[in-house]
């Protein structure tokens, strides 16, 4: 008799499974979870904490707040940040002052761990939400974050 009950139970469980998929089939119109990615670019918004790439925000006077302290360079586990710096004499105080010449960011080596942004004492660098990073040549992934002619915002050092 267990032979027949095996068959009965087998068919019953199979039909139960089919009812689950069948329910989704009937609701397939509104239930689809596919994101049609390049088409939904306009509506696709990443969360504000999403770690896409490191950027250095500049204000309208072309000023940033990077003092060249190199803490980000030290914090980076894989050497993606490279700071070329210089010493100039401050016109107001007459003291020697460290300024950045180039804040180089090797995006190709970056693992988006967030340690540099966490380490920055003056919030000079932050995360941007751009995630479309493919390029034809990997040299394009090496970026200079400070814009040409930019200088450090007054009062950041204190």
């Amino acid at each position, binding site marked *: 008799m267990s032979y027949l009950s095996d068959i009965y139970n087998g068919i019953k469980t*199979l039909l139960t499974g089919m009812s*689950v998929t069948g329910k989704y089939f009937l609701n397939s119109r509104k239930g689809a979870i596919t994101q049609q990615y390049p088409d939904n670019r306009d509506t696709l918004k990443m*969360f504000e904490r*999403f770690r896409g790439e490191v950027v250095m925000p500049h204000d309208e006077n072309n000023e940033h707040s990077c003092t060249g302290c190199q803490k980000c360079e030290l914090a980076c*586990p894989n050497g993606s940040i490279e700071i070329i710096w210089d010493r100039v004499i401050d016109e107001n105080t007459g003291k020697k002052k460290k300024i950045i010449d180039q804040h180089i960011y090797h995006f190709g080596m970056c693992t988006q*761990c*967030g340690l540099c942004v966490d380490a920055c004492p003056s919030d000079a660098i932050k995360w941007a939400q751009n995630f479309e990073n493919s390029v034809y040549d990997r040299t394009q992934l090496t970026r200079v974050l400070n814009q040409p002619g930019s200088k450090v915002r007054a009062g950041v050092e204190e």
Partner: protein
Amino acid sequence: MSTATINNNFKSEEYFINMGPQHPATHGVLRLLLTIDGEIIKKVEPDLGYIHRSIEKMCEKDSYQQIVHLTDRMDYLSSHINNEAVCLCVENALQLEIPERVKVIRTILDELTRISSHCLWWGVMGMDVGALTTYFYGFRDREMINDIFEETCGARLTMNYNIPGGLMQDIHPNFVKRVKEFIAHFKTKIPEYNRLLTGNVIFQKRTIGVGLLTKEDAISYGASGPVGRASGYSCDVRKHHPYSALDRVDFKEALATEGDSFARYRVRIQEMWESISIIEQLIDNIPEGDFKVPTNAVIKLPKGEYYQKVETARGELGVYIISTGTKNPYRVKFRSPGLSNLSLLNHIAVGGKIGDLVATMATIDIVVPDIDR
């Protein structure tokens, strides 16, 4: 069983096949050297090293903050728990007092990670035994967890949210709301998982009595996590050595005694329920406070040896750090659950069919970068 003697003209030979490194069932670049006789498996020999990145060696040149992000890349499905293991180890060495808020948030994220990992495992388990639709249902639910992670931690897979001393940022204002939404959603989905796959007669035939592992063998092979617990070996680190906020929550250790593939399957489904219950106990009373305690920019551990173990979705992850007092560790060793669980494979798959091997491997739930590191 030997058919070799039946007729000398038709000698049955053992047959050697390479399963992987490019094979759909090995979940990555694992290579299995199979010796088979017809469909019956005579020997399984895992060949590792295809994704070895020498993470342990890289740790020796990194500072303690930098080690954390490497552990994301080991068992990428429980990356948050891996991060926490390193952070706990460093914090214990420094004897830091961690705020209650951090502990609770860490535990919630741990359990979310566990559910997410088990969701993926459930989908892939179904796919390995041939039911392709489970994959999409599992991923649909995992997507909600990934969104929670993305909103709070900034990444979907390699979160790197823990730092020695606390968390990188405070939780996002939406976090609690979203977690509650997910819990409400997911509670209706596990019964559906059961209806679709667990109860299915074909699935049960494929898994019950397949890949039998006794408790003694589980202990002697060092099995941990759901693989060990399915054999009746009580090895939940969360229960026996509670860390973070696990000492104040009430949960049952998912245990089974059969030790077959179906038992491992049930243990994982049970763990999802337990994780939900842990999150529910904690989500409403996250204490106020700081999200990190200040540490030195350059952390130097006191000279000595430190060990911390946590329960990842796959089993017991141990972090062993030897420090000589400098800013880099002298040696780091990760005791990964995947490697010891994989070492069982030859023991439990021999004598089964090729299909059994695939089903068994799916229930061991290997993540290849966790095995190779």
